[in-house]
Each structure stands twice: as C-alpha cells, then as structure tokens.
C-alpha cells in the first residue's frame, strides 16, 4: 500500500469515520444513513478540494510515492510480449535503467526507462533509480538497435537524478549523458517519452530528447531537485517547498513552458491510487502517438525534432 501523505490525512480520517459509523449502524440496528450520506458528500467535496489545489511541493511528494507504476510495471501492462535486454557491452549491467524489445498492439517497440525499487532491498539493487554511465550506455545501445530495425522508442523517465558518485565520474557520467543527447537528436525512428514521476535534471534528459514528451499530471521535471535548489539558493534544504513553487516544475508548468507536449491525467490522488488505470491511459497514448508519428517521413520528423529543441529558451535582443 502506498504510504499516506500529510495533506491526505483529513481524507483518511473522514473515511475511517464513515466506516466506523456504518459499523455502529449495523451493530446497533440503527438507521443513520442520512448522516452517512452527509459525510460521504463531505468526503467527495474534501477530496476534490484537496487534489484540485495541490501545491507544487505536494505534487512532488505524490511523484515520489512508492506504489506508482515503475517502468517495468508500464512494460508489463502495455506489451503483449516483451524481452528485457541487459548490459552496455562494456562494463556492467546497470539495474537503474531497464530496457528491451516488445510488441504493443502487435507492433514492435523498444522500451527504455529508469527503474526504481518497490522496497528498500530492491531500491538498493536499483540504486534508487539513479543511473551510472553504463545505464545510459545500455539505453543508447538499445536505441541504436531500435534504429537499426526501424522500430520506435518509448522512454519512461523517473529519476531523482543521475548517480553522483566517484564510480560514475570515473566512468564518465557526463560523457554518457552527452552522447545520448547527441544520438537521440539524430535517431532515425520515432521517439516518445513519458515523465512518469521525477524528472531529475541531466539524469532525466539523458533519456529525454524525443519527438513527443508527455508528462504525467503529478510528475515534476527540473534542472535540480527542490531540496538541492533550496540548499543552493537559500542555504536551507527545508525550504524545498518554496523552491518547488518558484521553479515551475509541475506538469502544467512544463506544458506551459513548451517542455512537454501534453499533460497525461492521473487517477484521482495520483497514479499510485490506481496503477492499472494509469498504465491503461499510458498504453492508449503510446498507441495514438506512435500511429501518428509513423505517418510522417523520418526526415520531416527529424526536422521537427530539431526545430523543437532549437527553439527552447527565452531571451530578448536589444
């Protein structure tokens, strides 16, 4: 079960109260259905109120909830057949990024994504979804393989960031991410990506130059995690919520800034409340998107990809 967030407590308290009242009714043979109905209406209102006015920081917390579908969950839900492929052919298989080949709706795809763990043990194995250079190199190998066989690439982005550590630096974290940016720019097959949870900086972008970028309703994507931003800006990481607000990192912000093409609605309260529904929504979007992109000649797609990223940034000339 996903853990409960602070701002969701009034909701669960109310839910418990309704349950208790129902139990009391049954036990004592009393009819309090009017009161129950009143409370249930109140719960609906409160639920709407809570989730319709989430702060950026609350969204970040939802994006980090365990129980949200991970890349492997999406793969399992969208593919009729899938084979996971491992390794960068150089140094190591990085469990923080997974990928492979499969069929969606009978059509071939390569799928790649960050992989977080479901529990502490798996998170240690997955390094909390923070990839090493070999993870990005595995991703690149699979992208080039997809290009060779003319199948589109679907990527799932969910990482706090690329792993900041000595081992990663020794093996060229920067080079690995940089190489992916260069190669994704020229990949001669349609590419789409979904920011499904956390879009942590370069570690996220390393899988993220694509023809279409979809961002889930409660996902965030930024140059830096709010805690780190607060530490730098105000020398105080407890100011993370303030940083989250000012940095415009939420899904709607990303669409408005032209970083993401479309916001993908999540189940009420977040993907973790109904993972199956979330996966189904994503599956539909993949099919719709890849059908549309497949209609375009690849050179046209590459020109559009170029233009899209060429136009990123805002400035004035005087």
């Amino acid at each position: 079960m996903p853990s409960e967030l602070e701002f969701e407590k009034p909701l669960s308290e109310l839910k418990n109260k309704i349950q208790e009242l129902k139990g009391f009714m049954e036990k004592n043979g009393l009819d309090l259905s009017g009161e129950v109905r009143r409370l249930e209406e109140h719960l609906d209102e409160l639920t709407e109120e809570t989730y319709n006015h989430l702060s950026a920081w609350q969204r970040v917390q939802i994006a980090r909830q365990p129980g949200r579908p991970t890349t492997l969950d999406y793969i399992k839900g969208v593919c009729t057949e899938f084979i996971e492929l491992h390794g960068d052919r150089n140094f190591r298989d990085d469990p923080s990024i997974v990928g492979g080949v499969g069929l969606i709706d009978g059509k071939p795809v390569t799928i790649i994504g960050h992989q977080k763990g479901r529990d502490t043990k798996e998170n240690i194995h997955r390094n909390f979804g923070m990839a090493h250079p070999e993870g990005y190199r595995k991703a690149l190998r699979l992208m080039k393989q997809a290009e060779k066989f003319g199948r589109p690439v679907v990527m799932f982005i969910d990482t706090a960031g690329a792993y900041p550590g000595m081992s990663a630096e020794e093996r060229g974290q920067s080079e690995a991410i940089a190489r992916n940016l260069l190669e994704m720019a020229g990949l001669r097959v349609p590419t789409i990506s979904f920011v499904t949870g956390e879009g942590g900086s370069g570690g996220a972008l390393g899988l993220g130059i694509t023809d279409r970028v979809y961002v889930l309703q409660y996902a965030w994507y930024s140059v830096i995690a709010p805690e780190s931003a607060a530490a730098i800006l105000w020398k105080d990481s407890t100011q993370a919520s303030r940083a989250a607000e000012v940095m415009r990192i939420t899904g709607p912000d990303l669409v408005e800034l032209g970083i993401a093409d479309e916001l993908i609605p999540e189940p009420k309260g977040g993907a973790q409340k109904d993972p199956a529904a979330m996966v189904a929504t994503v599956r539909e979007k993949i099919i719709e998107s890849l059908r549309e992109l497949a209609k375009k000649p690849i050179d046209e797609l590459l020109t559009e990809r170029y233009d899209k990223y060429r136009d990123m940034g805002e400035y004035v000339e005087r």
Partner: protein
Amino acid sequence: MLRDLFNKRRHYATLGKTVEREKVPTPDPVEKDIPKGLVEKCDACGNLIMGKELQKHAYTCPECNFHFRVDAYTRIALTLDEGSFVELNGDVTSTNPLGFPDYESKLEKAQKSTGLTEGAVTGEGTIDGVPVAIAVMDPRFIMGSMGSAVGEKLTRIMERATEVREPLILFTASGGARMQEGILSLMQMAKTSVALRRMHDEQVLFVTVITHPTTGGVSASFASLGDIIFAEPGAMFGFAGKRVIEQTIRQKLPDDFQTAEFNLKHGMVDKVVHRKQLRDALGVLVRIHSARGWADAE
C-alpha cells in the same frame, strides 16, 4: 552398452561434489560426452536421470539445472519447428592447408566419433512458422575449434540470411582457433566479421546463443556481435582461459568467473535463458522482428 557408457564417463565424473540448489553449475571444459544412453548421471549433482526424462527436460538436470552438452542436430531439434530444418553446405569440409602433422587423422577421428563432417551445422528452418537461418557449433568436433571449413560454413549462412533477409540464430561453442590451420584459422574471425558487417548494414537480425564453452577467437568475433546475445546458464564465455589468467596475474579468480551469469552482471550478454525457455524466447524475438511496423496498414 550401458556399462560401456558409464565406464567411459567415469574418468570425468566429479563424485561426492555437493552442489547448491540455486546455482547452476558450470560444466567442466570440453571432455564431457553428450548424453545418448538410457540413464545419465548428472556431472554436477550425481543425480541419475532416465534418458527420456532428460529429453523431456531439454537435456538439463531436473534436480540442479545443470545443462548437459547437446550435439548440433539435437540442438536444432530443440530449437526449430519439427521437420522444418533443411541443411545447407553440409559438404564443406576441412583440408590440411599447412600440412600439419596428423591433422588428417585427427579430422577423420572427429568425423567418425561425431558423425559430423565438420564442427558446425548450418541451414534453414522455422520457429513458430517464422523462417530463420540457423547455425550450430558442435563442441565435440575438435573442441568446437574454428578452422577454414567452420568459418566458411558460418560465412555462407550469414550471406544467405542477409540475402533472403531472415534472422540468423547462431549457437556458439568453441575452444577457440583450430591450431592445425594456423593463421588461416585466425582469419576466420576476420572473414565472419566482414560478412557480419554486411548483414548489419542490411539490418538483418543476428542472434547469438552462447553455449558452453565459448572462448578465444569465437568469443572475440561473432559470438560477441549478436544484436541480441542470449547465454545458457553456467556457460563459460570469455577470451582467455581461466588458468592462463590465474597464471598471469598470480591470483585466484572467483568461482563464477566467465560464467554466463558473470557476463550478464558485467554487461556482456542480454539475457541468461534456461534451455527449457530458450525456444520460446527465440520465438518472441523473431516474432518481434518480423511484426508489421506502425505505419503498415492494419
């Protein structure tokens, strides 16, 4: 005949060795025979297995998952749709280009004991109805070494697959180069690689399945060049032999050194697949690669 088999195998049996259930043991190098008797003894756990039972388990030990070595035709039968195999270039055989002493008699002996003309069998067939080219190296034939004839057969099947645009599935097993052919043997690495370059440029799927043992020149050429590389559990896959490395660096190497699982961890193979699941996994791969694209009509 049964007694003969046991007598013959006794030399190599590792009796009294305990084996962890979870780990898939690595077969000892090369000398092992391929099961053909009524009852077989698992080299890893000592379990006695009826021939029929062994066949049912795709020649793996039901107790400890030890993968018995299988000959080329058994491998083909385990992989392709029944009756679909057509052998190609079966008449390509070795000669003695360097006039190497006793090479002819060695070849003759290998041919007699294996019933094969050379160390690789190649041809075409189908997996779940999808046409594929297939090549299987047979570890029994002079340790699965690669001479000019093996190189030629593999190159021809690569060219064939490229020409008709069908996936090539290559089961590797090799002790390395065939010393008796000297530099010509080394150049089979180059020959197969130039053929693979064309296959790559023509975007034809090349899958290698690493079986025990795949070492030396074969590992340093086509075995490592699969678009997708599967490996059987416990199979040794590496460049230099473990003993050579230990002597060079004067250190003891870990038990799992160069196993399929070791290679998976180190990023060199895509997936370790139990032999019982191998046919299905290959089926999925060829289906994905023969599926209609997103732009095609429904």
